[in-house]
C-alpha cells in the first residue's frame, strides 16, 4: 500500500454487531437477519475488503413483480425503473456496488424529466455500475459522452456555431471543482467551446438515437482554459478539470460526505487527496480509507436517504418487491430514483420535514401491512415486554437504544391500559404489536444510522 494510506486514521475500537450494522447501513442498505453478527466476526479490515471487492453478483429472495404478479418492465413502465433498482438494493449481495451507483447517480445527477427515456437512464446506470470504484477520471470521461447526460445538460445542442454552456458549467461547478473554485465565467465559455461536437438523431417511435461525436460541429479553434491555451476538445475539457489543483479536495470532501456527516479533519482530507492522486484518481482506495475511518464508527449519525431506508426495511423484514407502490412512496419521501430534483442531486441535509416524515411513516406502514396481525385470528400476549420483543423480531432484532426502548415500553403500557373490556383485552394486544412494528421502524434507531 502507498504510504499515504497509512496516514489516514483507522478505527481501532471494538467492531461488534453494532459497528458492523452501521457499516452495512453507510456502505449499503443495512443487514439482513443475522448479517451484522456475521460481519462483526470477520473484523473491520476483512469486512471492508469484502464490501469493496465482493464476489459474483447473486440475488437472494423472491423475484420482483408488480401487484398482479407480472415481472417488471424497467425500460417501459412508469416507475418500474425505480423498482428495478430498489430490487437490486434489497436482494443483491453487493451492497456497496448499489450504494456507489447511487452516489454517482447523485453526483452526476441526471433526471429522466429532462431525458425522457428510461432506456437511456438505465444505460447511464450501467455506466455508473461499471466504474463504481474505478477511476473517477474515466468515469467523468464516460459520463461526458453518455447519451442521457448529453440530453440532460444540452450536450448535443452545443455546437461550434452556437455554444451552449450548460454542461461546461456543471462539469466544473458540480462534478469536479465546486462553485467558484478556481474557474471564471470565461473558463465556462471556453470549456463550452471545447465540449462542442456531440450530436444525435431523432427517430420516430425510438426517440433520440445515434449519439456520436461529429468533428464538423466541433470548434477546432484555440481555447484558453484555466490560463492554458490549446485546441482543446471534450477529452481535454475533462482532463483539465481532473488535473486542476482544486479537484482532489473537491472530490475527497464530496465523496466523504456520502458516508460521514461531519467534514473530514484537514489532515485526513489531505491524506485522502494524496491517496487519490497517487492512485491516479482511483475511487476504491479512498472509499476503503473512509470506511475504516474512526469518524464513521464513533461520529454522529446520519438520516437514511429514503431509498436506503425503504430498501433496508424490506431487507430486514425479508420482503421482496411485490408492489409498485414503492415508487410513489419514495417520491413522496423525496427520492424517486432516476428523478433527482435537479442537477445538484438530492440534498442530504434536507431529508426530513413534516411532509417527508409522513411519507416515511407511510413507507414503514406499507412494509408491515401484508404481515399485519388480525386481532380476530391472532392472540398476542397481554404483556408489554413480550409484545416489544415480538415486534423487534419482525425487523430481525435490530439493536435498540435505551431511550427508544423506554418510550416504546411506556407507550405499550398506556395502550394496554385502554383495554377496559373483555373484547379489548383479547384484541388490543395484536393491534399494539402491529403498532410497535410500525413505531420501531420510524424510531430514531431505524430512521438514522
Amino acid at each position, binding site marked *: 500500500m502507498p504510504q499515504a494510506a497509512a496516514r489516514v486514521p483507522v478505527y481501532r475500537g471494538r467492531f461488534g454487531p453494532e459497528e458492523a450494522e452501521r457499516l452495512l447501513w453507510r456502505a449499503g442498505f443495512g443487514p439482513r437477519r443475522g448479517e451484522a453478527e456475521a460481519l462483526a466476526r470477520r473484523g473491520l479490515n476483512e469486512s471492508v475488503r469484502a464490501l469493496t471487492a465482493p464476489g459474483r453478483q447473486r440475488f437472494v429472495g423472491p423475484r420482483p413483480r408488480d401487484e398482479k404478479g407480472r415481472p417488471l418492465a424497467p425500460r417501459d413502465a412508469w416507475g418500474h425503473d425505480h423498482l428495478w433498482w430498489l430490487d437490486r438494493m434489497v436482494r443483491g449481495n453487493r451492497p456497496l456496488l448499489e450504494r456507489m451507483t447511487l452516489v454517482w447517480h447523485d453526483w452526476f445527477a441526471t433526471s429522466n424529466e429532462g431525458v*425522457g427515456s428510461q432506456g437511456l437512464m438505465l444505460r447511464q446506470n450501467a455506466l455508473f455500475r461499471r466504474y463504481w470504484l474505478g477511476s473517477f477520471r474515466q468515469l467523468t470521461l464516460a459520463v461526458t459522452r453518455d447519451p442521457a447526460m448529453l440530453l440532460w445538460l444540452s450536450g448535443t445542442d452545443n455546437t461550434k456555431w452556437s455554444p451552449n454552456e450548460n454542461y461546461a458549467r456543471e462539469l466544473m*461547478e458540480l462534478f469536479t471543482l465546486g462553485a467558484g473554485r478556481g474557474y471564471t465565467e470565461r473558463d465556462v465559455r471556453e470549456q463550452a467551446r471545447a465540449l462542442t461536437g456531440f450530436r444525435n438523431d*431523432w427517430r420516430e417511435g425510438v426517440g433520440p438515437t445515434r449519439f456520436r461525436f461529429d468533428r464538423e460541429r466541433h470548434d477546432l479553434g484555440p481555447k484558453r482554459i484555466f490560463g492554458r491555451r490549446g485546441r482543446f476538445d471534450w477529452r481535454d475539457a475533462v482532463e483539465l478539470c481532473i488535473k486542476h489543483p482544486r479537484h482532489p479536495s473537491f472530490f475527497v470532501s464530496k465523496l466523504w460526505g456520502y458516508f460521514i456527516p461531519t467534514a473530514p479533519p484537514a489532515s485526513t482530507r489531505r491524506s485522502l487527496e494524496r491517496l487519490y492522486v497517487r492512485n491516479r484518481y482511483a475511487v476504491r482506495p479512498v472509499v476503503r480509507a473512509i470506511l475504516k475511518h474512526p469518524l464513521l464508527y464513533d461520529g454522529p449519525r446520519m438520516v437514511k436517504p429514503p431509498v436506503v431506508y425503504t430498501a433496508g426495511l424490506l431487507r430486514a423484514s425479508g420482503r421482496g418487491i411485490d408492489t409498485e407502490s414503492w415508487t410513489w412512496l419514495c417520491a413522496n419521501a423525496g427520492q424517486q430514483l432516476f428523478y433527482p430534483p*435537479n442537477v445538484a442531486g438530492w440534498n442530504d441535509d434536507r431529508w*426530513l*420535514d*413534516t411532509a417527508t416524515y409522513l411519507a416515511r411513516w407511510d413507507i414503514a406502514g406499507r412494509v408491515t401491512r401484508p404481515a399485519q396481525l388480525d386481532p380476530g385470528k391472532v392472540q398476542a400476549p397481554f404483556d408489554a415486554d413480550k409484545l416489544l420483543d415480538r415486534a423487534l423480531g419482525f425487523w430481525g432484532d435490530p439493536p435498540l437504544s435505551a431511550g427508544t426502548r423506554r418510550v416504546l415500553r411506556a*407507550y405499550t403500557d398506556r395502550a394496554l391500559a385502554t383495554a377496559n373490556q373483555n373484547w379489548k383485552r383479547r384484541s388490543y394486544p395484536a393491534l399494539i404489536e*402491529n403498532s410497535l412494528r410500525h*413505531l420501531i421502524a420510524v424510531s430514531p434507531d431505524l430512521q438514522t444510522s
Partner: protein
Amino acid sequence: MSRCCNEFSRSSLLRRAVAEAGSGLPVIEPGMPLPAGTGLDRRDLLLRSAGLALAVYGAGAFPLPGFEEGVLEAAEAAPAQPVLVSVFLDGGADSLSLLAPVADPDYRRLRPRLALPDSGLVFTEDPRLRWHPEAAAFRTLHLEGKLTVLPTVGYRDADQSHFTSRHYWEVGATNPGLRTGWLGRYLDRAGRPDNPLQGLSLDGELAPPLATSKSPVAALRGVEGYRFWAPGVWGEVETQMLGTLAPLGAARGSRDRALASLAGTAKQAQRLRHQLAPFNGAGLTSPVAYPKHRSSFPARLAGLAAMLGAGLPLRCVALRAYGMYDTHDDQVEPLAQGLKLSGESLLAFQRDLEARGVADRVLTLVWTEFGRRAEENGSRGTDHGAAGVAMLMGARARGQMVGELPLLRDALDRQGNLKASVDFRSVYTSLLEQWFDFDAAGAIPNAKAYGRLQLVK
C-alpha cells in the same frame, strides 16, 4: 427532445397515494370502534361538517377543539395578520419574453428566432413593451392596479449558477454560507414558538426562504391528506400510538444533527396533524374556477386560499410556480405553457381571495433566480443571464412599475446580460417594513445599505 413536465409525475403520484391509503383496512366487528381512515371520532366529525364554513365565521368566533392551543391563540391574537406568498419561477425565467421590448431596434437583432411578435398586449407603463401573448392574466392584474412589475431586479456581479443565485435570493444576501432563509429569519424574530403554520411550504419539502433557526415551520403537499395511517391499528390504540410520535422522535436525544432534525420534525408533524385535522378529506371547494390542469400548482393555490379564508394563522407561504424556466433549448413552447398556466392560476387565486374577503391581507411575490441572456443561443433557447423579472400581486400592491428596462443598447452588461435597476434586497427590506411592519435589519444583513421602494399602498 420531449421534456415531460415535472408536475406531471408528481401529481400522478399523489393521486395514487390517495387511492392507496384508503384500502386494506381491517374488518369491522360489531361493537368495535371504526378503524382510522373510515371512521371519524366525534370531534373530527364536528369540525369536518363545519369544514369551510370556518371561512364565514372566522377562526376566533368558532369553537375549534381540533386546533391546538398555539394555533388557536395565534389566530385569535392577530386574526388579520398580513400574509406573504412566495412563488418561485424555477430555472431563471426569460424576462425579455414575459415583457418583450418589441419596439426596441436591438430586440430582433439579439433574438432573430425567438423575438416575439407584437401581441398587442401593451404594457401600459412602458409602451415599448408587450406582454407575452400567453401572459394575458398578468396583464389583467396589471390593468386592475394589482400587479407591480420589476422588470430588471437582481444584484451586482450576478452569479450565473442556478444554485448560487437561487441561494442568494433565498437567504436574502449574496452569502453562500448563510443557512437560514430571509423569511425564516423574519419568523425567528416575529413568529411564535408553537405555530408551524406560520411558515408553510406547499411543495412537499421545506422551501429554503422559510428555513428558520428556531421557529417551527411546516411543509405539506396540499391542504388535504396530512393523515397518519397505520395498518392494523385503530381506536384507542391508534390514538395512543399517534400521540407517541413526538416523544419517540426525541427518544435518543438530539446530540447529532440527524437526531435533532428527526426529533424536531416528529414534534412538528404531531402538531401539524392536529392543526390540519379539519381539512383532512373535507373536499375543498373554491368560490372561483381555477385552471384545470394536471399540474398541482392551481390546486395548491386553491387550497391555500381556503386555508387563508378559514383563518388559519399563516404568515409566510412558499411554493413553486408551474413550468420549467431553464430554457436552454427550444424555449418557445415550454415558456408559453409555464407563463400561461402560472398567470391564470395566480389570477384565479387573487379572485378567490377577493371572493373570500381576505384579499387585503395577502401579497404574492413572484420571483426567479436570474434572467436569461439577451442574445439567444443556437438551440432556440437562451442561456443564464443576470437581472430578471419579479412581480408583486395583491389588492394592496402599489401596482406601479419599480425600476426600468432601458433600451437594450444601454441595458446590457459586458457579458450581454441585463443589468439590474433594482436590488432584490431593496425589495425584501421594503416588504418586511411596509407589509410586516418589521425592522428589516432583523432579517436582512446590512439592511440599511439598500434603498427602500414604495411597494404597498
